[in-house]
């Protein structure tokens, strides 16, 4: 690269830094908004796994045994028994009011039937309109029911003269031992924040990149900008976006350090590969932003498209609802979203610490994203030199 180009790059970069520093909207979208989101999500899900969620009981039997069941239920990690209701319909109303997520129903005569060997039936009602709360409560209430049943069986067996080990072996011949690999605490924050943070950053990079390009046209400064680059669109783009790349990368470093250094979330690959993944995501997102602007050549349309892409990313990247459960069309489309690839790299690297060779596909895909602007360079140049702003 010639000395002149260097000089040009420097002047354009200087101009860009000045623009960023003087317009509040850039400070907001580059620094304030992402940092706010990082702090927001990590403090919102501080607990990791929701505990003590309100549930009710409808205990129509009301004996020492059933009260014992309820006490035990209350002692479970996820459940807090907040109220006792006189009937099912009263409990259902409380559920509709949003006071409880679930209730446990013990009909009249449960104890008596259990003692007389007449197989009573208890039930639990779970509101799955709140899926996470519902799933966690289901787990605890089901375990409790199994235990209650086992307690009766154990009492019978012990009375018949079996040892405790024999009784357990009879009641539960096969035990399932679960190993949640690399997130043994089932921490939801680990599972969500690791993709939400880069997702928010990616969305803001899309928007900022397009906004920066569009305002050049809107404020009639595009020609001046191109002249500074001697009408070379490549120089113009590099000069303009390198300062932004640097700041966004710093933000990416910030969230990586915050996640793995401060919050100590699993990072089995070491932080360095994740920093590289962050850099790759930043550049790929910028490139995608430039590509979208080149495609539409209209600020508003490009921003709308970027918003669509950015917001859909959160769903289609598959970190909450797996891609494999989606319609085949969407499974194919998911490769068009940079966040999807970042998510796969994260799972391979930080979460599981597997050899990087297994993640070559997402890495190559992100690299392909960085090449996208080259498809629209010519269009962009014409636009910047000749177009006028259309609202």
């Amino acid at each position: 690269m010639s000395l002149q180009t260097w000089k040009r790059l420097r002047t354009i970069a200087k101009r860009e830094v000045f623009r960023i520093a003087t317009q509040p909207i850039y400070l907001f979208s580059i620094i304030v908004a992402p940092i706010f989101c990082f702090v927001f999500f990590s403090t919102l899900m501080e607990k990791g796994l929701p505990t003590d969620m309100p549930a009710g009981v409808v205990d129509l039997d009301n004996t020492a045994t059933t009260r014992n069941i309820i006490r035990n239920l209350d002692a479970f990690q996820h459940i807090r028994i907040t109220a006792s209701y006189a009937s099912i319909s009263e409990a259902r109303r409380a559920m509709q009011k949003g006071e409880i997520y679930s209730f446990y129903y013990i009909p009249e005569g449960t104890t008596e039937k259990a003692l007389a060997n007449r197989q009573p039936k208890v039930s639990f009602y779970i509101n799955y309109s709140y899926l996470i709360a519902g799933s966690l409560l289901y787990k605890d209430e089901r375990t409790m029911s199994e235990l209650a049943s086992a307690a009766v069986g154990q009492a019978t067996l012990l009375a018949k003269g079996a040892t405790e080990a024999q009784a357990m072996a009879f009641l539960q011949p096969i035990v399932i031992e679960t190993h949640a690999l690399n997130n043994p605490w089932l921490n939801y924050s680990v599972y969500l924040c690791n993709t939400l943070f880069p997702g928010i950053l990616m969305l803001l990079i899309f928007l900022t990149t397009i906004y920066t390009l569009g305002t050049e046209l809107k404020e009639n400064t595009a020609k001046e900008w191109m002249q500074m680059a001697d009408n070379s669109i490549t120089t113009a783009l590099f000069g303009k976006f390198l300062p932004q790349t640097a700041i966004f990368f710093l933000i990416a470093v910030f969230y990586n350090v915050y996640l793995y250094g401060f919050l100590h979330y699993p990072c089995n690959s070491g932080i360095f590969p994740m920093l590289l993944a962050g850099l790759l995501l930043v550049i790929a997102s910028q490139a995608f932003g430039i590509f979208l602007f080149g495609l539409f050549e209209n600020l508003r349309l490009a921003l709308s498209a970027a918003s669509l892409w950015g917001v859909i990313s959160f769903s289609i990247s598959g970190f909450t609802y797996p891609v494999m459960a989606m319609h085949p069309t969407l499974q194919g489309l998911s490769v068009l979203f940079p966040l999807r690839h970042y998510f796969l790299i994260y799972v391979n690297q930080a979460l599981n610490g597997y050899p990087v060779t297994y993640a070559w596909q997402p890495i190559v895909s992100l690299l392909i994203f960085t090449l996208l602007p080259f498809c629209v360079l010519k269009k962009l140049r014409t636009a910047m030199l000749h177009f006028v702003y259309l609202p």
Partner: protein
Amino acid sequence: MNRKSLRYTLKQGFIGLLHICTHELKQVFKDQGVLIFFLLVPLAYPLIYAFIYTNEVVRDVPAAVVDLSNSSQSREFIRLVDASADVKIQSYCADMEEAKTLLKKTKVYGVIYIPEDFSKNLAEGKQSTVSLYCDMSGMLYYKSLLLSCTNTSLTVNKQIQIERAGNTTERQDELTTAPIEYEDVSLFNPQDGFASFLIPAVLMLIIQQTLLLGVGMSAGTAREHNRFHDLIPQTRHYQGTLRVIMGKASAYLLIYLMVSAYILCLVPKMFNLVQIALPWTLLAFIFPYLLSCIFFAMTCSVLIKHREACLVVYVFTSVPLLFISGISWPGAAIPGFWKAFSYIFPSTFGINGFVRINSMGATLQEVLPEYRALWLQTGFYFITTFLTFRHQITLSRRHALERLYVFRLRKLAAKRLKG
């Protein structure tokens, strides 16, 4: 007619209101950008979301098996796991190393490991352990694998108990295996699905976010078109603050009554989501929600100086707002500070109320706190809109007066020059 009489003021106010309302409607339909937010996004987004989550649940999570016992009992166990809807046995591996490689290649999301002494222990009447290793990249994989293995173990356990007990009647078998029976009932989301859980919240959020974007954009446009970058023009009809606000608000309300009818009634029907709302309850609830969203959007629109800036400022907020509403992250687990913060936004109450009305069949009585909060917000944001708009009107009046003053000075100077 007396110019100061109440009747005259009211009449003028009403005419002005109608004028502003029709003007705003025309502006909306002329402006492609605003139209995208008011019509295209509300029409298309719900469809995309519903399409993504349309399968509701994860079926056939691929898993690998390492069966070192290789007995009829272990094979029976594996068959039962494979037969469950949640898990599919993808591969049979000779050892853990092979299974691990499959995990790394993401060919499978879980490994079921059956140790060598599995059937030997069972035969001796000891407890046997089956280990389950889950990839934790998605909670739903974990949930499916765990559920399927637990269910299978319960079934197999029962069979074993029956064999061992040597009972004579079936009733005795039942009593041995389950002295107390239990039953779980899924309320309001019978298939425990993802769409029925998330989509109602997303639908309500779309209403608030598109209003923010659309109102913000038209405010930005109004400023850019105005010579002094003022939000409100200084013409005859734009005299009273109240009629400006009410005029604009009624235009948005008209559009959004239609939009919400589509989003909240038609979309759930199209995708067979849970929908047991009582029509009048829904209408009564939506009305304050729309009003509070409109005034909230109008208050916020003062911040938007440029037409396109609204996208940069508003779009990313959708994700935090969805989390803070208490649907995807249980409300009971939200820290106090963020709970208080969430009361700023109409979406918090709107989503909670709507989910309960739509998915859980609640009546207005049961969503009374949310309903009241929405009216409170409507009042509050109406006042803030009033204050900010009045400030804007004073500003634009001042600009107009300044212009008049300069104009007069010029005229005077020209006269003097002539004279």
